[in-house]
């Protein structure tokens, strides 16, 4: 049994089911990311774990103990967790030191021990020089580090992060992504991280949970999620993809109609009936010459071509009106309106149950 077990968690606001039968397990010391578009229920799930909301169904267990059920819920202050908020939520009337020391004071830590602990975490987050400042005097990145220090210093059983980087500018966000992963590797707190940014999830997480419309679409490691998406939604949301709808044909192929048959390296074929095939834009080979393959190959016309410096972004229209996005090296320069051949390597084709 994992350290954190979430089973059948459901939360409704009126007629709207915001979190729908979510189950998760989190191993002790791992960092798990809830990833999804806004409104997918990831933040509500986090707030249910924190205790800021009570579930309508299901339960949350930590270390074998039920902390939240529809009947009784431990209040947030009794859960021994920490949280990092989207807007940092630093208290403007306290100095950096006081902000960080707050949780220790609530735990009645003696003064010398408290000073030692706060000093250590301020060092680890490179904030020692700013201890006397107030939050209003800090930059966004510094405020973010104070929020981290405040959350980490109490050595929480579980660390919750709610879109912690969304208020930072792009450069700082990249830096902090690695910083969060570094601090996690150093302290190994069991962490639940909510984000809508797939790069953040890929960088930080041991396990990614993709959510959509209140439900879990897939739970897996970052590479697994990317290479073996469980649903079309996951494939589209992570990195973008082309989806071809069709029906299973034979042991490892899908007939997508219009003469396009795709052999797939793996995936979840439906036993019978509708299946989709996902293939990433950069996995498709583009050429003006015929590929000579009878399967995994299609003919189309360049509808649009965009030069993006490191690569070219093509939109190809197949016979029957189907559109395919292809990312090709800059050397392959085919003008709009020209005919092209596409080769979709079986190793890159991934079948999905629809």
């Amino acid at each position, binding site marked *: 049994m994992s350290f954190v077990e979430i089973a059948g968690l459901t939360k409704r606001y009126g007629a709207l089911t915001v979190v729908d039968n979510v189950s998760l397990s989190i191993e002790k010391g791992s960092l798990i990311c809830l990833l999804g578009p806004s409104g997918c229920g990831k933040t509500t799930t986090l707030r249910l774990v924190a205790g800021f909301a009570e579930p309508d169904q299901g339960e949350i267990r930590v270390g074998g103990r039920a902390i939240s059920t529809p009947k009784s819920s431990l*209040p947030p202050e009794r859960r*021994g967790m920490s949280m990092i908020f*989207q807007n940092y*939520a630093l*208290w403007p*009337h306290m100095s950096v030191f006081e902000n960080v020391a707050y949780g220790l004071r609530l*735990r009645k830590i003696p003064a010398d021990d408290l000073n030692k602990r706060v000093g250590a975490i301020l060092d*680890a987050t490179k904030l020692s020089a700013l201890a006397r400042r107030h939050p209003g005097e800090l930059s966004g990145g510094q405020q973010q580090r104070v929020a981290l220090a405040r959350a980490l210093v109490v*050595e929480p059983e579980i660390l*919750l992060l709610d879109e912690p980087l969304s208020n930072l500018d792009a450069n700082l966000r990249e830096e902090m992504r690695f910083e969060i992963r570094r601090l996690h590797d150093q302290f190994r707190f069991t962490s639940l991280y909510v984000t809508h940014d797939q790069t953040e999830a890929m960088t930080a997480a041991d396990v990614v949970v993709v959510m959509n419309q209140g439900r879990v679409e897939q739970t897996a490691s970052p590479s697994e999620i990317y290479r073996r998406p469980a649903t079309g939604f996951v494939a589209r949301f992570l990195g973008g993809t082309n989806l071809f709808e069709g029906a299973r044909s034979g042991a490892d192929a899908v007939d997508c109609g219009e003469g396009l048959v795709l052999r797939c390296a793996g995936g979840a074929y439906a036993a019978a009936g509708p299946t989709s095939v996902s293939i990433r834009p950069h996995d498709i080979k583009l050429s003006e010459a015929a590929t000579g393959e009878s399967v995994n190959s299609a003919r189309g016309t360049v509808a649009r071509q965009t030069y993006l410096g490191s690569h070219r972004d093509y939109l190809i229209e197949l016979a029957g009106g189907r559109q395919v996005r292809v990312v090709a090296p800059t050397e392959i320069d085919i003008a709009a309106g020209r005919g092209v051949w596409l080769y979709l390597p079986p190793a890159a084709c991934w079948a999905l149950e629809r």
Partner: protein
Amino acid sequence: MAPESSAALAAPARGFDAFRPLAGLLIAVLAALVALPFFWLCWYALTDAKGAFTTANFIALATDPTMTKPFVLALAMAACVSALSCAIAAPLAWLVARTDMPGRGAVRALVMASYVTPPFLGAVAWEFLAAPNSGLINQAWRWAFDLDPFDALVDIYTFEGLVFVIACYTFPYVFTLVATALDRVPTDLEEASAILGARGARTLSRVTMPLVLPALLAGALIAFLQALTMFGSPAILAMPAGFHVITTKIWSLFQYPPRLGLAAAASFPLLIITILLLRGQAWLLGRGNYAVVGGKSGRARPTKLGAWRWPAAGFAGIVLGLTVALPYLALLKTALTSEVAGPLTLDSLTLHNFHFVLFELSSTRLALRNTFLLGFGAATIGVVIALAAAWLVARGKSRLTGALGFLAMAPVAIPGVVLGVALFLSYSRPPLQLYGTLWILLIAFLTIEMPAGYQQFASALRGLHPELEEASRILGASRLTVLRQITAPLLRANIVAAWCFIFIGAIRELSATILLTTSNTKLVSVIIYDLNESGDLGAISVLGILLLVITFAVVAVANRLPVLGGPPQARG
């Protein structure tokens, strides 16, 4: 902290979470504050001496001319006050907010000063100035033109005099609303009109005025309401003039022989009018077209007055002279001379009045003590209740918290004199016999000031992100700890403001106080009223000046107290 420290620190030990019991207590207290008086008001209005149901009180109210006349007079008086307030305040607000008139900042500050002056003190000061015989203005008039001793230029003991004196203390309400609205009229709207070729006056009448009209009307309603429900000024000026308005009439029903049922019944029309006017005001200020006045397009371009700059300043000077300077000077002169009517020379200067009030007048010290005890008590308890109620409503999730918000705001619709009647009826009988103690006055002040305090905190809490509180809870603070350590310090400025507001409101209150006070529970406001009856004008002036000085001192100190972490430090 070493990376290898694997054992998590334990969550803080479970303390007693007093949140739920306190929330329940708060609802009970507020319900008692509002519901109990209302119940007894209805009970007395609808029963006779034996407790049987009767409509006799309401029939008397509608047919007895001694009851209907004060109503008509009060409504007429309030309408005149409202019109006069607008006539003074609207031009003044425009001059201050939108022109280059000299001394605009000073005018704003002085209008606020007249806001702080208790209205009954203004009425007394105007007695000194414009009583037909002894009034300073009339004496100067006779001296200047060598007239008979009974010729008078002005007589304050008239309907017109009353309207004038009340308007002096209601126009700041209109001024504040209109000036704020004018401050917020987007410049581009006026510039758009100017570019289309409209001249200054046309832009003013066709663009600016319609935009601030809702604010002006709302101000007019507030002035009307203030005048209608005011007790002090009419009691000081109308009763010597031989007529009653509704508030003084209700008070007279408490004199011997008391007619409590009629007084209770007479409260209902006041209650209903107040509710209607407040709804009207909320509607005016809440309508969509007023929201236009909220656009942000930089600082307004002031209208150049040119040759009219000094006449405009003269107008502002006259308004402030009549409402602030003259009354204050009259109080000061009366305090410092032994004879009210006598001239002010170095010889006639005396501290006799101060000596008399502070050391000889037996009731003064008790009244000062009572006043400040109640002021501090009402302000402190009121802030705690209002903050807790607003916080429960803002952060709570249950249906009960909605009721809490309603209860906290309900007293806004209860005029002071009506509350006085209702509290007298509720607490002068078993089981809770509080009449004759300071407790009944404390309840009155808490009830009267609750809506203002609640509103202050409700709007402040809307601007405070819940994450700031959640961050504290997840680290181990109970809800009450969060309120004490995070929410209250962050709302420090609002707490000080609300405290001062309630304190000032409490020490200047007379409408409810006059019905609830006894010889053991006199307050400074009541002593001033009593001394006016007995004609001891020097003592009144001294008390009035003391009241004002202490008010300003308390406000100044309250803003500097190091409670809740002291004033916010300047941060780079």
